[in-house]
Each structure stands twice: as structure tokens, then as C-alpha cells.
């Protein structure tokens, strides 16, 4: 077996050192009746690299990859071009095969990257500080709600109807067990987001309002107005950013008054990967630092006075605090954070702004063209690179019929919000810098044909 270095002679000599007659003697603590006599039956035996590659490649070939079709999906996961150097660098063994940096003297590479990452996230979000990443956007969102409850000592969270429904489901699932009070506003097909409803739902028991920016339908909430209303009663504003590229073009949530900004970092460096692993981003005001979940990297000096970095404030964490920890999270998303950080370093501030402008321009082109399709209209008054298209019939069927024509034409609101009436004709459509003129034309043409009832 190509991954196992011990030879039969090694094994014999080691057993002699140990003083055991056979390897099975080392499993003596396992009750005899539970010990398996040989390899589990019905499962295949080991396979060569070539054979495994053949098997996996056949499975991969059954999927229609985004790059091989006109592609317009978003809804919390966006297809951007990732520069070749990003994937090369994250595969360096010193990054790929290192552990959590618990021995800082020989982990400065990872630690300095995390410090740079925290700085980049904080500057992107407009927050004072950021942590070293979380599992993904949805879990970061729930952790932010818990943190807001710790900071405000209140337990009522108001979720905007524009929050990604998976994020809302994660929050409602967890809150069932923690008994936090969650007020979920209903999603509605309106040209502007539900800012007024969010503001109206705030009362003096409210710990936080959770507002996605841009929201799941691509609309852009007025965070400044929401922040003013929330802060008047002592509630915190949690802004959720599922498309960080947007922040190259629109104002940072922290600059508009958001107290905690969380997000999904997948757009930069990470890739689609059928939904994971992704990258939870988490930034907030400096005064909340000791209530923050997740790992933090901090600057310090070594015994010779050289600048260095360590994991810090771990007295919040589970390995010290056990049942009193701020969170049970042990792992972050280190390698995805590295990819995000490298991509953002390659872009720089002005590069990100230009990338965002191109995304928006591609979206404008897309929606102008789709708006010409008979029976189709665009919902949004404002959007970044994603907006809601209103179709004359259930978008779930239309998406399937587009797929029959090898067009990946967006995410239906009916799949995202299965129980919400009145949304089912909505189709979320996203464009990025990877969208070509030909893609837009192919999409519009296929949509025309599908809506005209032509057969594929």
C-alpha cells in the first residue's frame, strides 16, 4: 500500500521491541466479540492511484460544471475567476499540511497570514477587528446573534426577510435548542428591501437586527437608517455579507453603523465546490473583543524582541473554558482564509473596486437583456451583481427546463423559500466578471424559448 511505510520486517522487529507476539495482541482491550476477524465484507479492496482516478473522474464527468455552460447562479455562492497563483500557493505543503498554530515558534507563516487576513477583513468590512475565520457565513451569522445576546444581555433577534433562507434556518434550528427568541420577517417580492419592517420590529427587548447587505434578492438595505433606529433602543446591528466583492463598490457596513459584520468569504479565492468548504468572516467593534467567538491571532514579540504572532485571548475558548466557553468551535477555516487573503492581496483595494465595477456592469448588461424577454421583468430598484427576475410562471420549472438546454439560469425563490407563497415566480440571477456576452445572449435566447413553450 503506497501510503504505508512499514515493511513486514519493520513490523516484526517493532513487535519484538514491544514484547507482543502479533499486532492483534495490541488490540487486547477490545472485547473479543467486537473484534472483526478480517476486512469488512462487501467492501472493495485497495486500489491503485490510476484506478481511483478513473473512478472519481467518471463521477466528476456526470456533473455539468459551471465553466462549461452559461452560468448565472448566486444566492450566497458566487463564481469568480481565481488567479492560478492562489491555488498554487495554498498547495505548498508548509501551509496545506500544517496544524493549528499552537507552537508559534514554528508556525509564524500561518500566524502572520491570519494576522494579515484579520486586517484585510476588518478593512473590507469597516470594522475595528476581525477574527481568524469561522466555518461559513451561516454559522458565523448564528454566532453573531449569540454574541449580541452576550453583549446586550437581551435575547430577541430580528431577522430581515432578506436574509438568506439557509442562514435563517440555521438560526432558527439553533435557537430552538438555546431558547433564544427569533423574530423572522417574511420575505416579500418588493422592489426595495424591508428596512421599514425591520425598524418597526425593534423593541427594547431586542438584542440585534440581522440584515443581509445586499440582501438575498439582491436589494440593498439602508444600513445607516436601520443602525440609527437599532442603536436608539440599545440593539446591535448585524450585517451579513454573502458577496464580499460587493464591498469594492458599495459602502462598508461598519462605516454605516453595523456593530458586527459577518459574511461568507467564498467569493474570493475559494471557489464554488458544491457548497463547501467555505469561509466564515467575522468582524466587530473592538470593545466586544472578549465576547467574540472563534480564534484570534495577535501581535507580540519574542524573547529577542522580534515581532511575532500568536493565537491569543484563548481564555474565551473551549479548551480552557470548557462548558463556559463563548462557543464550542475548535476548527476555523484556515486554508480557505489563506486563499481569500492571497486573492485579496493580488487584487488590492483598487483592484477590488475595479473587479466590483466589472461585476456590476455585467449584471446591468444581463438584466437589460433579460428585461427584453417577453413576460419578464426585473424586481430590484438597486442591485450589485445579482437581482430578482420575475417570470410569468413558477421559476422552479423554468430552471429545470433551462438546464435541459444546458443553461444554468439562476436559483428559483421557490427552492430557497418553499413555504413562502407569492415568491415562486421569482428567479435569482447573478452575473460576475466570468459572464460573457455570449453567455448573456444564450441565456436570454433559451429563456425566450422556454417561456414560449418551445420544446428543448
Amino acid at each position, binding site marked *: *500500500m503506497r*501510503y504505508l*511505510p512499514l515493511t513486514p520486517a519493520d513490523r516484526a522487529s517493532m513487535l519484538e*521491541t514491544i514484547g507482543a507476539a502479533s499486532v492483534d495482541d*495490541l488490540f*487486547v482491550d477490545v472485547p473479543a466479540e467486537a473484534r472483526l476477524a*478480517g*476486512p*469488512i*465484507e462487501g467492501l472493495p479492496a485497495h*486500489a491503485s492511484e490510476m484506478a481511483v482516478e478513473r473512478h472519481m*473522474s467518471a463521477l*466528476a*464527468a456526470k*456533473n455539468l460544471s459551471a465553466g462549461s455552460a452559461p452560468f448565472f447562479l448566486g444566492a*450566497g455562492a458566487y463564481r469568480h475567476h481565481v488567479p492560478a497563483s492562489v491555488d498554487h500557493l*495554498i498547495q505548498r*505543503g*508548509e501551509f*496545506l*499540511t*500544517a*496544524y*493549528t498554530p499552537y507552537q508559534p515558534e*514554528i508556525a509564524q507563516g500561518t500566524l502572520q497570514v491570519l*494576522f*494579515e487576513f484579520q486586517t484585510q477583513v476588518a478593512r*473590507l468590512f469597516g470594522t475595528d477587528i476581525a477574527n481568524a475565520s469561522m*466555518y461559513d457565513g451561516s454559522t458565523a451569522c448564528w454566532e453573531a446573534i449569540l454574541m449580541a445576546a452576550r453583549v446586550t444581555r437581551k435575547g430577541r433577534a430580528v431577522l430581515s426577510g432578506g436574509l438568506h433562507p439557509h442562514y435563517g*434556518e*440555521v438560526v432558527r434550528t439553533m435557537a430552538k435548542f438555546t431558547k433564544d427568541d427569533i423574530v423572522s420577517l417574511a420575505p416579500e417580492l418588493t422592489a426595495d428591501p424591508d428596512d421599514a419592517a425591520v425598524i418597526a420590529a425593534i423593541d427594547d427587548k431586542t438584542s440585534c437586527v440581522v440584515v443581509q447587505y445586499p440582501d438575498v434578492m439582491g436589494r440593498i438595505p439602508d444600513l445607516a437608517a436601520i443602525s440609527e433606529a437599532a442603536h436608539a433602543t440599545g440593539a446591535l446591528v448585524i450585517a451579513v455579507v454573502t458577496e464580499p466583492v460587493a*464591498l*469594492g*463598490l458599495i*459602502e462598508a457596513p461598519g462605516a454605516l453603523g453595523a456593530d458586527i459584520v459577518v459574511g461568507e468569504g467564498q467569493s474570493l479565492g475559494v*471557489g*464554488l465546490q*458544491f457548497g463547501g*468548504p467555505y469561509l466564515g468572516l467575522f468582524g466587530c467593534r473592538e470593545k466586544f*473583543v472578549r465576547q467574540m467567538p472563534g480564534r484570534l491571532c*495577535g501581535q*507580540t514579540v519574542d524573547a529577542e*524582541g522580534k515581532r511575532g504572532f*500568536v493565537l*491569543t485571548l484563548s481564555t474565551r475558548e473551549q*479548551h480552557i473554558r470548557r462548558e463556559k466557553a463563548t462557543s*464550542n468551535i475548535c476548527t476555523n477555516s*484556515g*486554508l*480557505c482564509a489563506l486563499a481569500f487573503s492571497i486573492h485579496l492581496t493580488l487584487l488590492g*483595494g483598487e*483592484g*477590488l473596486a*475595479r473587479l466590483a*465595477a466589472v461585476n456590476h*456592469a455585467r449584471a446591468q448588461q444581463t438584466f437589460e437583456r433579460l428585461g427584453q424577454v417577453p413576460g419578464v421583468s426585473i424586481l430590484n430598484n*438597486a442591485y450589485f451583481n445579482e437581482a430578482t427576475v420575475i417570470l410569468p410562471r413558477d421559476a422552479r420549472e423554468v430552471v429545470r427546463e433551462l*438546464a435541459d438546454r444546458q443553461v444554468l439560469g439562476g436559483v428559483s425563490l*421557490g427552492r430557497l423559500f*418553499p413555504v413562502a407563497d407569492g415568491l415562486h415566480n421569482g428567479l435569482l440571477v447573478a452575473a460576475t466578471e466570468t459572464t460573457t456576452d455570449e453567455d448573456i445572449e444564450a441565456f436570454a435566447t433559451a429563456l425566450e424559448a422556454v417561456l414560449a413553450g418551445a420544446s428543448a
Partner: protein
Amino acid sequence: MNAPNASGWRPSMGGSAEAKFATSSGDYALMLEEALSLELGAPDKCGVDIDEPGRAPAAGLGKFLRKSAPALPGLTEPETVRHYTRLSRQNYAIDLGPFPLGSCTMKHNPRLNEKMARLPGFADVHPMQPQTTVQGALEVIEQLADWLITLTGMTSVAMSPKAGAHGELCGLLCIRAALDARGETRDVVLVPESAHGTNPATAAFAGFKVESIPATPAGRVDVAALKAKLGPNVAGVMITNPNTCGLFEPDMREIADAVHAAGGYVYCDGANFNAIVGKVRPGDLGVDAMHINLHKTFSTPHGGGGPGAGPVVLSEALAPFAPLPFVTRGTDGSIHLVEEENMGEGHAQAFGRMVAFHGQMGMFTRALTYILSHGADGLRTVAEDAVLNANYVLRSCEDLLPAPFADSGPCMHEALFSDAGLADGFSTLDIAKGLIDEGFHPMTVYFPLVVKGAMLVEPTETESKAGLDRFIASLRSLAERAKAGDESLHSAPHFAPRRRLDETLAARKPVLVWKGEPGVPGTPSLSEIGGS
């Protein structure tokens, strides 16, 4: 005492690795310092060629536009590649040598796994694509699920948890949901005192009270003490098996039977499943839920701290409560996802959703590749060689370092030592930092808490005997130096990119982000960052 190094150099030949003088650059040949990207870069530098947008933003966006670009310095591609390559060289990694962190399982990461995960059919697929266009991706999830169920002898598996602790939470929420369905409000979870810190943290997060169970002098769960705590308030137990002392819990079945008889459920922390994969099925021991760290047992890379993946295998009693989404195969042979939209079809008891989308697909692809490479026979050898390597370390060092449970028999995949018997003022920390100078990553230190100055060594099955012999020689040499009171250990490491770092300073005056102007070089002075 010193073994000849691989170059043939011996101490008697003179010269010293410590012979240094100050260079003008501050670098020393291949020991390269690196500034922050934020100091090196400039906001108008860019390593990506981006088209001109060609049009102005839509009028509707006007009031939302930011006034200036984010203050993020950029670098061109050559500068970027150099920055991260130089930083990478300040990391130790499993690719460089043994990384014997007990309970963390740092084994070789096969590169085929990386190659397969990057096939466009897996890497460039959107989670919300129509399911007819992602049948191969769903089949990966289905095949991995089948392997995990078969290897553990369980009924079903929840695939979506993002990491081990997230899997623990998933398992405990299944237990909560099952109790709710029974109309019971049991609120206590029993956790052995040797448990990893995530266990009590998770139980508390899931709304349970935690009660601790003591260990026996032989390092196992005290079964009598556990049974005495069972009662109508106990929702279940969380037991790590093999446990954090590196020992199998031989009474697992008896514990499970007692817990079940008292109306509770058995959660097994599967962090150490790599020691028994292919040798024992946890389902045969009465386990109701167990998470599997794909990054431990099935070699997905740790990546400097994640991403992990923590699928949870479930017994028949808990299977109906598994969270959304999951995959099933229809009568027509197609695979589909059960989500909120169609959960009514026989899955109405699902406790909810733990993540956006479907879990750590990129890790599933890697783990399945690893499993297919090893096969049922190879996985069994993985466990056997891991246990053999650990026992070899245990028996090769126990004369110098006390091994508190060595008398009770063989260990599983990790060897546990204590720092009792070192010279006055010497402890585990000195041995750990000394290992860094010897060119090794230290073992897990001061865990489990039940052993004084614990040193938990997990070599894994991917270390060769020659590699282990080198590690053992270094560990023995350090134990001898610590027993002899060699003061130089107190200031180790001497040869790493950094000497011991001031963690107190970092915590007392946290500096978590760089506050300088973009692109302006200049390390803050010590007084600025709180140094003396």
C-alpha cells in the same frame, strides 16, 4: 549523545549552528524574514488584470456607492508568490517531518486527494444547480456515506457538519430532538473528566448541564461512578473511544447497555476512530451517535487550522432526527437531496439545518479518494500500523519518561507520558520546545488534564520505522537533558524562526489588526505594541 545528522556531521568535527553574526539584511541565507503584505503592498498595485467596466454604475446604486476604494494594499503576482512562499518557510508541516500531536492525527495527506477535489466536475459546481446536473456530486456524498455507515456499523449518517465540534453538536441535537419526540426533558449529559474541551462546551451549547465522571487509576471511565449518576434526568453520555489517554474503553458495551436501560443515549466522540477503523465497529458497542473527523481518520488536510468535516453516524433510534439536507436515491435510480422543500416525504422529524448548502463537499471528495485508495483491507492496516507505531514509541521511551498507564497493557494510536521525575524546575514545556530545536513538531502537551504534565504522542501509520527511531532518539536525549537539569532547555527553541513568544503581552494588550497606512513600511516600535 548526539546522533550523527544526515549530512554526516558530528559534534567532534567542530563548528556550530549557533555561530552567527549580524547580516546587513537581517536574513540568514535560507532563514528569511518577511514583512506584512500590508507593509509591502500599495493600494494601486494589482496582481490581476481586470477589464474596464465600460459603463457607469446604475443610477439606483448611486446613494450606496463607497467614496473611495478599500484601504487594502495589493501586490503583483511575482511579489505575491514571493511573499507567501517566504512565509510558508516559517511553518513546520507534516511534509517536513513527524508531527506527533496526540489526538490531532497528523498523517500524510495523499496528493491524489487534492487532484481529485480539483476536477472541474467537483470544484466548479454550484450547490444550488438543478439536481439533474450534479448527479456525480450527489453520488460522491452517497458513496462516502455508505462507507462511513458500513465501517461504523451504524444506520445512517448526517453529512453536513463542518468539523468535529460541529458534529458533536449535531449528535447532541439529535438526542435532544429524540427526547422531545418522547416528550421528555432530560437535561444532564455525563462527560468523563478526561474529555476534550469541546465535549463540555458542546453539551452546554446544546442546552445541557454537564456532569463530570471520574477516571479509574487505569485511565478508563469509572463505570461504577457512571452508573451511579444515571437516572431520569440524564439525556446521555459523551465518551471518547479510544479515549484521550490513548486507551480503548473495554466496558463500552456495558456502559451503553446501562445508559440505554436508564433511557439515555450514547454519544461517542470519534476523534480517535483512526485507531480502530476496520478493526471494530462502534455500532457493535451500542453507540447511538459518533462524529468522524474526516481530517483525522481520512486524511483531509488540516490546512493550518481547518477546514475540517464532521459527519455524524447515527443509530436507528436517532436516524429520523438527522438534519437537512441529505441524499437519498429514488426508485428511478436518480439521487436527490432532501431539503426544506421536500422534507415532508418521510423526513418530517429532521431537527432542522446546521449549515447553508450541503456540507464540506471538497472534503468528501478527498476522503472518498483516500478510502477507495486504501480499501477495506488497507484501512484495517492503517489502524494496525498506527497502533503498532504508538506502542513502539511507548515501549522505547517508558524507561526514561513515566508512562502512567503503560502497566495496564498496550496503548492504542497514541502514547501518553508524564513529566514526573524531571529535574526540579523542568517540565513538559522544556521537552516540547527542545523537540522544536531537534527538528520535530512537539507532541500534544498538558492534555489530557488527568495526567500531570501530559505528553501525548501520536505518530500515525504514515511514519516509517527509521523516522520513528530518529524521533525516539531525540525524545530520549531531551528526557536525559531535562533530568540532568540542562538549563539551555529553558530558553529553547534556539534555532526556530522565533524564540519563545510573549503570550502574556499579546493577551494583555491585544493587537489584532495592522493599523498602519497601506503600503507604508515600518514595523511599529515596541512601545507602540506594548513591549518594554
